[in-house]
């Protein structure tokens, strides 16, 4: 069975919510819609305090090339535009909308019928994807229209759909693949059309046999789409790792997947593309997994963007006693929240609760040079060395050791028997090296 070759770990899967069907969460009274929900430049608001907005109405425009439009996820009145602590841990500008009813923009097709035919040209598709504010829903939230535009001089020959969901605990993509497979496949063929590729492979890890079976059956009806089952190994969902595993091409260091002719999209993104192109629906809701070992009802919710995290926790049975940490995203790459009222954004794939006793890291001891971090690093780096160099502020050496190749998968910190904060230090190093490189580029 296929998988990537270098490194990788096997954290316990804990997919507690994999049998919980997607539930539609009630629309909250107030939503806080951050202006920066995507990678790139924050969007610029086009509404002001006191405006009435409909569900799906454009409220902030992504003006830069790498930016994304933002739409109101509810109908109601803009209460104010203010700074709210979001999932980044900092106060960021949000558009705060008080909900009144649920009146949608009239051009949005809300019927459940499957609309298969798409007569739009590739340019029109990309324009629509940009207009509707679609971003990568795997977690990196890179604007999708940018990814669908093949840069000049490059050629894409394969579309890779990421249904791996290699993060433990998360099941949002898994449920989507089971419940929305048909729409997703239409979305994939639209993406193929936009890119001008003949072939698409959906990669799914073999811990989701039901999804593999279901999608394989349906995919036989679509030309050029095939399903590949992959051996479970974290971080298979990383772009470069997935390309390596599925088609055995290695993206060169510091380059994008297009360099080897591949474009990678998440299954959730494909669904969002379908909804945007065929149904005119902007990205205003997403599936979020709420899970944790002590939680009453691990669930998958369909949530409007901007809903406070606390509303999700309440719907899944409240915050258990002795909760020591709340994480936005998966346990390996997610971000710990410092405020439970932070809003759900486009990139929120899960909310995980950890009981207090699972929180503390291992006590920090001397590095015993066991080289486990090297053997698990999926990019073939030396995390122990990078961490030391970054800690000693030897950033030029960090750069020579390819610190910028690190995808921050967290395998090194996960495996380290001495409990050393390897990834913490490497992140500082990446930050500084990034600054150095930018200042060099601007000179």
């Amino acid at each position, binding site marked *: 069975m296929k998988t990537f070759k270098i490194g990788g770990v096997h954290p316990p899967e804990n997919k507690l919510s994999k049998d919980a069907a997607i539930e539609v969460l009630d629309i909250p009274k107030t939503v806080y819609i951050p202006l920066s929900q995507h990678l790139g430049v924050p969007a610029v608001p086009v509404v002001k305090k006191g405006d009435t907005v409909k569900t799906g109405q454009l409220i902030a425009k992504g003006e830069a090339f790498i930016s994304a439009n933002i739409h109101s996820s509810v109908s109601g009145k803009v209460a104010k535009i203010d700074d709210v602590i979001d999932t980044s841990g900092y106060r960021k500008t949000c558009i705060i909308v008080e909900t009144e009813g649920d009146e949608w923009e009239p051009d949005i097709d809300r019927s459940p019928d499957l609309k298969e035919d798409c007569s739009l040209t590739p340019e029109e598709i990309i324009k629509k994807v940009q207009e509707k504010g679609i971003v990568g829903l795997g977690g990196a939230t890179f604007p999708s229209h940018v990814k669908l535009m093949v840069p000049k001089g490059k050629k894409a020959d394969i579309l890779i759909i990421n249904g791996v969901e290699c993060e433990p605990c998360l099941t949002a993509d898994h449920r989507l693949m089971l419940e929305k497979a048909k729409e997703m496949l239409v979305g994939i063929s639209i993406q193929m059309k936009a890119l001008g590729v003949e072939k698409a492979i959906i990669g799914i890890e073999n811990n989701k046999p039901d999804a593999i079976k279901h999608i394989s059956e349906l995919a036989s009806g679509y030309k050029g789409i095939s399903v590949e089952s992959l051996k479970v190994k974290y971080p298979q969902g990383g772009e470069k790792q997935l390309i390596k595993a599925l088609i055995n091409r290695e993206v060169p260091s510091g380059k994008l997947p297009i360099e080897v002719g591949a474009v990678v999209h998440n299954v959730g993104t494909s669904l969002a593309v379908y909804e945007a192109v065929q149904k005119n629906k902007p990205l205003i809701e997403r599936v979020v997994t709420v899970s944790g070992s002590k939680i009453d009802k691990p669930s998958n919710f369909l949530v409007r963007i901007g809903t406070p995290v606390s509303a999700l926790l309440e719907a899944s049975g409240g915050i258990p006693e002795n909760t*020591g940490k709340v994480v936005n995203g998966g346990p390996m790459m997610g971000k710990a929240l410092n405020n439970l009222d932070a809003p759900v954004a486009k990139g929120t794939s899960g909310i995980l609760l950890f009981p207090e006793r699972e929180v503390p890291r291992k006590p920090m001891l001397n590095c015993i040079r066991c080289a486990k971090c090297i053997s698990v690093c999926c990019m073939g780096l030396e995390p122990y060395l990078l961490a030391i160099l970054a800690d000693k502020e030897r950033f030029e050496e960090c750069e020579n050791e390819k610190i910028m190749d690190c995808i921050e998968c967290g395998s090194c910190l996960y495996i380290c028997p001495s409990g050393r904060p390897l990834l913490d230090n490497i992140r500082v190093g990446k930050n500084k090296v990034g600054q150095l490189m930018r200042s060099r580029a601007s000179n």
Partner: protein
Amino acid sequence: MSLLTVSGSPHVYSKESVSKIMYGVIISLIPAMLISFYFFSLAAILLTLTAVVSCMAFEFLIQKYLIKGPVTVFDGSAIITGILLAFNVPSSLPLWMMVIGSAVAIGMGKMTFGGLGKNPFNPALVGRVFLLISFPVEMTTWPKPTEFSTQLTDVVTGPTPLAVMKEGIAAGRDASEVMAEIPSYVQMLYGNMGGSIGEISAIALLIGGIYMLARKIITWHIPVSYIGSVVIFSGILWLINPEIYVDPLFHLITGGMMLGALYMATDMVTSPMSAKGMIVFGIGCGVLTMVIRLFGAYPEGVSFAILIMNAFVPLINTYIKPKRFGEEVKDV
């Protein structure tokens, strides 16, 4: 509700820990320990105990009163140093020498550099080599293995097979002729030969090595490249002139070869980090061991070979890097 914790990802941690690794090594040493207790009786038990206790005591004293830092005596690393040091001495060694050896191993070999993880040389080997140079007579008087008995006196001493071979060949005798004077291979395999306490039984050490491999405490790279290069080196010489060079199997099962390849060279702290580096390290150890054994003054070269290669580890780490992802661009 108490305060929420904020930390960088990942938020789950493996169950690996330093003491788990160390105690894994200790468990893997049990077969060899039992064999040594069987052949060298009470002497081996006493020496091992002395070494372990004094290693732990020195580590405790140094950490508590000299460094005044955290005390990590029970993480198992001092116990391993103790056991390995005891494994590397003859069973007739006086206990007070063992204590000195432990002090050197822990004090000079490990703590001088800042404790666990920072020592460039394997502490047990530092202790052993110190003893070998300071007390050459005591360190090269090898009691013959006997059946288990509780008596301490009346041990018969004799040279190790390696020493017999070296002297025999130096005296101009034929290798096969000398072979007749030493125990058969089967006898040597399970440990019935003269030698240090722990190195005699290749079988017991192999069992321990397989256990460590299965628990992923060590990787195959160092043992395989070490043993492989010894086999190739001695094999070539043996094919050229079997009269003065012995066959590779002899070199594998005699002396500290197995103990060295499986426990001493694979010591995490003092071996290279990348897989490629480990192979280079293993080959270096193998070649040096054979050079010392065949052309050097000492009949045994494992300790020196590993210590010399230990010194090369930083260099290996600097120049031999793991294969980076996306380093070689494959043609599509």
